[in-house]
Structure formats: C-alpha cells, structure tokens
C-alpha cells in the first residue's frame, strides 16, 4: 500500500482563517479559497438550471427566468460575478508568481534587503485596483440593466 507522508497542518480548518501573524497575501489566499468554493456551489446550481429546467421546455424555462429576475437573485448574481472577477485575477497573479514572472531581476544583498513579498506587493496592489474597477463596471451594468 502506498504510504502518504504526513503534512504539517496541525491547525486544521481553523488554520484556514487564522494562521499566525500573516499579512495581506494570506487573507487574499483565504478569500481565494472561499470564492472558489462559492463559485463551485454556484456552478452546480447553474448546471441544474441550464440542464434540468431547460430540457423541460419553454414554459418551465420562462418560469425559472422570471424567478431569477427577482432583485435578490440579481444581487446574488452580482456577488457571483464579483467572486469570479476576484478568483480569476488573483489566480492569474498566483500563476505569474509561481512561474517566477513577478520576481524581478536579482539584486546584490545590500541592507536594507528587499524580500520577495515586498517585491511582489506592487503587483498585488495593481491586481486589487483592477478588481475594484471591474466590480464597479459590472455594478454600473447591473444598475443600468435594471434590478
């Protein structure tokens, strides 16, 4: 039988929310996880709607659509769009970081040292800025399109 090496995760589920003196990036990581789970839940609901309800014909489809045009569902839909924007852009940042694109050129280790987190921080702030702008654009469209 294949042996699994033990991993250090003594904090369990509690460690997802609090894991010591961590900075901004740690909270972005938690939000990435929460938005990912939320989008997965939405995906299952979305697939139910676009398969089970769609296959039953025009009347069931139109009844479902009129229910989904309720302002509360619209607001929920907006939250899903925000979660998608965040998860997509934060995910792209993580991919670029993991592949080493945001590391910058190597510099001599002269005091005060710039650690890798501070080198990447401007990119993180730019990502947050783009997310906020996109959220505002979609918010405008949701308002303009009518709730």
């Amino acid at each position, binding site marked *: *039988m*294949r*042996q*699994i090496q*033990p*991993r250090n*995760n003594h904090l*369990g*589920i509690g460690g997802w929310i609090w894991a010591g003196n961590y900075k901004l990036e740690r909270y972005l990581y938690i939000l990435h*996880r929460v938005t*990912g*789970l939320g*989008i*997965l839940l939405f*995906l*299952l609901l979305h*697939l139910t709607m*676009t*398969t089970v309800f*769609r*296959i039953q014909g*025009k009347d069931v*489809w*139109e009844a479902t*659509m009129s229910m989904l045009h309720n302002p509360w569902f619209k607001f929920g*839909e907006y939250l899903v*769009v925000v979660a*998608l924007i965040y998860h*997509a852009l934060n*995910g*792209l940042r993580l*991919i670029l970081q*993991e592949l080493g694109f945001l590391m910058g050129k190597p510099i001599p280790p002269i005091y005060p040292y710039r650690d890798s987190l501070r080198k990447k921080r401007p990119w993180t702030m730019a990502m947050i800025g783009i997310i906020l702008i996109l959220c505002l*654009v*979609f918010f*405008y*469209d*949701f308002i*303009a*399109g009518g709730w």
Partner: protein
Amino acid sequence: MRNTYLWFIQLVTGVLIAVLAGIHTVWMHLDAILGFFGIDVRDSTAWHSMIERSREGIWAGLYIALLAVVLYHGLNGLRNIILELTPSARTERIVTRAIIAFGIVIFAWAAYVPILLLST
C-alpha cells in the same frame, strides 16, 4: 510526480476558464455596456435566443469544452482543500474516487443536454 501534473493542469485550466468564462460573463451580463458599443446582446437568456444558440454546433462545442475545464478545475480544487486536512491514505483514496465519479456523472449529464438540444 502525479500531483505535479495535476497541479499543472489546474493552472492551465485556470487560464482557459478566465478567458472562456470571462467571455461568457461579459456576454450574459454586460448588455448595457456592450449596447453602448453597438453590440446587441439583449434577451440573451430568453427562450428563443437560447434555442437559437442551442442549434449551433459551435456553441454546444464551446459549452462542453468549458464544462470539462470548469469541472476539472473546481473538483480538483475541492479535492486539494479536503486533502489538506491530512486524511489517512484510505480516506484520500475514497475522496479521490468519489470526486472522479461525481465529475464523470455531472459531465455526462451536462454534456448530453446540449447535444440533445442540437436537434430541437
């Protein structure tokens, strides 16, 4: 090594979803702003417009491709989160098999419907 490949596919599917789901979201929701640029996507969820799209093979193909990458990315992400809780080898096997079975069932059903609707 297997987990390295699974993780690499996770990154690739992530980029694909960002592009495909990005187009899908903009097309379905940004009707007021797209309308400003002269692109009319009003009533994209109305029955007639949905059925029109359903009859085109390119849309069915795109939806099935998006479904495959989204299911892989979402369910592999869920598996990674569950396995972070350091379960036993037996639990890891059960979780992996349950998630694969769940993914196959959802994919088969959700891919069958657009294929069926091609002939409506």
